[in-house]
């Protein structure tokens, strides 16, 4: 259930943004979750819904864009798309893959009033 901690981290990012650039509340919040970020989206949504009441995220519409994973295949010497850490290289079917993208959970932008 680290999604609860991540939801807290998201609220913290939003509150820090407000400290720099004051607003009353958030109407839309857009997140980007990499396929390899280790985030269960339904759990994250649930955590955000539980956390939001009484905060500046109360009532905000939250969109989560899923970003596909990418990895460097050491055999093919090129970047390939993957969807989980268990995937094999789609080109050579090898397992010598080093994830290079889609490993983060980011707050992308928001609309505020």
């Amino acid at each position, binding site marked *: 259930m680290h999604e609860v901690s991540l939801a807290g*981290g998201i609220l913290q990012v939003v509150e820090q943004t407000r400290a720099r650039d004051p*607003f009353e509340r958030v109407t839309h919040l857009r997140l980007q979750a990499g396929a390899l970020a280790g985030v269960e989206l339904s759990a994250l949504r649930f955590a955000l819904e539980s956390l939001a009441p009484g905060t500046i995220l109360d009532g905000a519409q939250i969109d989560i864009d899923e970003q596909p994973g990418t990895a460097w295949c050491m055999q093919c010497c090129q970047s390939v798309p993957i969807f989980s850490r268990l995937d094999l290289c789609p080109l050579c079917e090898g397992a010598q893959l080093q994830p290079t993208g889609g490993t*983060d*959970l980011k707050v992308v932008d928001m*609309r505020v009033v």
Partner: protein
Amino acid sequence: MCVVCGCSSPATVAVATEPQVHPHTGDLHFGAGAARVSVPGMSQERAIQIEVDVLGANKAVAQQNRAHFASHGVSAFNLVSSPGSGKTTLLCASIEALRKRAPGVAVAVIEGDQQTSFDADRIRATGAPAIQVNTGKGCHLDAPMVARAFGQLDLHAGAHAHAHGEAHEHAHSHAEAHAHDHDHVHPHDQAHEPAQVHERGHTHVHVHGLEDDHGHSHTHGHAHTHGDHHSHDAAHTHGHAPGAHSHNHGHVHDHAAKAILFIENVGNLVCPAMWDLGEDAKVVILSVTEGEDKPLKYPDMFAAASLMLLNKVDLLPHLRFDVVKCIDYARRVNPGIRVLLVSAQTGQGMDAWLDWVLGVEA
């Protein structure tokens, strides 16, 4: 959605900055926007670009921890596993073995559990200092918890107390790691006499670990009055934004470890994978009484670890655990992972594990 009329026009931001005009009276209503209040200088609805990593705050503290550990000559290892893999037993055995093998190396432990100090008590019974961190409902340790715990350890205070053999106070009681913006280069040139370091007579706040008696050539890229380290310390300790500091120590700890910090994470193969604590390496412990397919079931953790310890291998004759298959699975999610077979109970493989910990393996 447009906040004025409720239409689905995307031009919401531009429209919403205008007051609502009453169609009959011409009255202006500034509080009709989504904010329900008018604030001078503040538009009604607007977009803010952020592009921030949700774990960024943790990563910033982890980087401070990493620099802090390095400046104290501490090698830190984050031990992760599911509950019951034998982490604490392995740690107790490792501490005993390290004491015999490398008596000059200080060892301390930060113990993470949701509740109780049972594990820290077991560590303290070996004579090694331990700090228990109870995470309450939390399922993992985070970097600020480790920063706090490290500040409580003698490993930390001890390094300050006797590394230069001079009375100096380093204002280190604050919980979070400090930043050192200056450059100094430590080529670890053994040709230097230890005295060369000390005869310079300054009480520099950088302390490189316990019994750090090998020659350091300090090349300071900044000017500060030797003997007035307090002002130096103050200048470099506070007032930096998280993540905005730089740790240009410029030295590489390629020598054998002078102090070891084991961080035993909460027993959980999921969440601790995402939280950087500032460790040198994550070590995942998998006991052979668990399934050999765990690397595939919990790939994030095995991908994040530098070393996998297969523990309780003394039980292999009684089990149907396929070691080769397990290692294959681990390499599939992490081609570079090291694997060592150990038994805390019989001592099998402990030498190789300690070689790895001490950084002296071939």
